[in-house]
């Protein structure tokens, strides 16, 4: 088989999407969010309400019940703010990854009946992580204002963080969604793998309180680096290290280009496997 599309497909291999593709991704994204809460009376509002309730619980428990403290944030809300600044982005990662992983299997009806770029399915599904991320950012803004630690111009670094973060999720999403077609067990074990990962990554506790070996891993752990960028930009008013930005960018680019090739190689077999 020859491909006339090939040059085009190559150029969109990772980020260069055509306007038509972007329309597709937006439509799928909307559909993904809507489908999840279909039939409930509050509908898509739950996409915002659910993470909001969760953050509220964390704030209450760690701000007023446990009164946990970490170095560098001694106020009542200090730990809650610090936690949400890392846990919000983490929720975006875990939600995006889980949705991306199941996206191809869930879209089997479409794949069997519609000709479209299948690789847009995990992209759209990964972007669903944007919702909890934005909720957490809004929640943080309010908390920081209450705590008297308002954001400075450093908050601007959230933008490259978001871009890098989602490039990374999409890159992994290419692999995971294609693997999940062949090994359905992957999608089942993934939530537990993510829980393991969240405890390997210093999100609930500061990096300094982890063993040396974990600190070494954390230095190269892209999940941690991403979460750390948010913390630095939002709470600590620091400029994130350019090196770590480049590092995550490079990993995302590398995984993304291999992942999209991996995906495109397998997508011909999807139709017979679904």
């Amino acid at each position, binding site marked *: *088989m*020859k*491909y*006339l*599309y090939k040059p085009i497909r190559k150029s969109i291999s990772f980020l260069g999407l055509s306007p*038509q593709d972007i*329309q*597709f991704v937006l*439509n*799928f994204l*909307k*559909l993904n969010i809507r*489908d999840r809460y*279909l*039939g409930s009376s509050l509908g898509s509002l739950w996409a915002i309400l659910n993470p909001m309730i969760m953050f509220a619980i964390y704030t209450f428990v760690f701000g007023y019940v446990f009164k946990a403290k970490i170095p560098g944030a001694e106020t009542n809300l200090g730990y809650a703010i610090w936690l949400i600044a890392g846990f919000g982005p983490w929720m975006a990662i875990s939600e995006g990854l889980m949705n991306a992983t199941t996206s191809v299997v869930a879209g089997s*009806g*479409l*794949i*069997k*009946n*519609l*000709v*479209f770029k299948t690789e847009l399915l995990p992209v759209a599904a990964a972007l669903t992580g944007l919702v909890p991320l934005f909720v957490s950012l809004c929640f943080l803004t309010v908390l920081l204002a209450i705590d008297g630690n308002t954001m400075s111009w450093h908050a601007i670094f959230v933008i490259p963080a978001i871009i890098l973060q989602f490039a990374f999720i999409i890159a992994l999403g290419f692999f995971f969604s294609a*693997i999940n*077609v*062949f*090994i*359905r067990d992957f999608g089942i074990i993934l939530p537990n793998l993510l829980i393991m990962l969240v405890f390997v990554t210093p999100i609930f506790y500061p990096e300094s309180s982890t063993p040396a070996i974990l600190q070494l891993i954390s230095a190269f752990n892209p999940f941690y680096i991403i979460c750390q960028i948010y913390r630095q930009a939002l709470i600590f008013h620091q400029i994130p290290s350019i090196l770590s930005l480049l590092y995550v960018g490079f990993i995302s680019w590398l995984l993304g280009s291999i992942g999209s090739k*991996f995906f495109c*190689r*397998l997508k*011909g*077999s999807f*139709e*017979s*496997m679904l």
Partner: protein
Amino acid sequence: METSRGNALNLSVQVSDVSKIYRLSYTLSPLSLLQALTSKQDSSKIERYKVAVDRVSFSIQTGDRLGIVGANGAGKSTLLQMITGVSKPTSGNIEVVGHVTAVLTLGVGLREDLSGRENIYIDGEVQGKSRSEINLIIDEIIEFAELGEFIDYPVRTYSTGMKSRLAFSMLVCIEPEILIIDEALSAGDSVFASKASQKIREICNKGKIVILVSHSMATIVEMCDRCIWIDQGKIVMDGDPQEVTSAYLEDVRKANEALLIEKYSSYMKSVSWLQGCEVISVEAYYAYESKPRNILIAKQDVIIRICLQVDILLDNPDIRFQIKRLDGMVFSDQLLSETDPTFINTNSSRAHSNNLLKGLYGRIAYDICMTPLVLGKGKYVLTCELLNQDMTFASKSTIIEVVTPPNSPTGVQPALFYPSTIALACNEIFI
């Protein structure tokens, strides 16, 4: 798949030597992932596989309307999927010049909890349309679906017919260059169905190339100017729709008859208790044909031909013909002496009872005419017995199946369409 935008006058679909092999594996495994990754599929290495499409080649030009017929599992849908681009051939090449619009299944993404109107938006969105593009066509779709106020109710409140109407209506605004339709286009009640098939015809007329898979031969003959018959992944016949569909139907009938005979072979007995007496055949024919058939359509003119061989002298011969339904119900059980006045009962004058004098000697054929065939839908055993002095000397039976004509109303089927009048019309003797 080689796809490009051709200019409107020069569209084509070129299928060259295309095969599709499905690997049959019951479980998905890491192994199948590896196999898919290494991709170069070598059919000799796959233990269990199915060749869905086997080295098929054909080409279609602008203006062609191609019908595809074939039994279930013949590979029609697989072929369509490959032309559409949903799946890739295992080997071979498909070149498509022009934009393909495919209708493979109706109502794929219908969301039960959303209203009909929202579902129309979703259908459009899934096809990559923006909200404003959908707004341009939604009124036409809603009008066509004729769902009234239900269009704003959740789809789960719809009846099955309403759902299929909604699903079908989503098609009405397509403007295809190359249109591919995979059957299942009957939607809703008969009024809507005729409206729908009218719409399909309109859409087909707009399409510059149409490929249509259907189990309705009438549709194929009416809408196509070329027809391909596919069996077990191979093209059996390619040509005029009328010729191809009738050849296909004939083949289907033969296959069904073979199946019938195989299944009920125990009913097809041939016995002779006396040397020189034999019932050679019991066969059913349409009045206008000369080929025996085992599957007959009700209400057609049918002849049942009985053929006997009698080489010895019999004192008091008679022929008995019986039609019995498989469940044991006897529809007809007659003696030839009762129906043929020339075949005088022999008790009175023994002198005239000789079979030679009655013409019952040598090879004899009787035609029993049923004009029309009044038996209802079902399977029947036809038995012919050669009697002498009320004793059976030879017998043969066969099985026939009566089917109702296509497009006849369904429901309770009468056992007989009206009282049976079986007449012995003629007897011919050839020694």
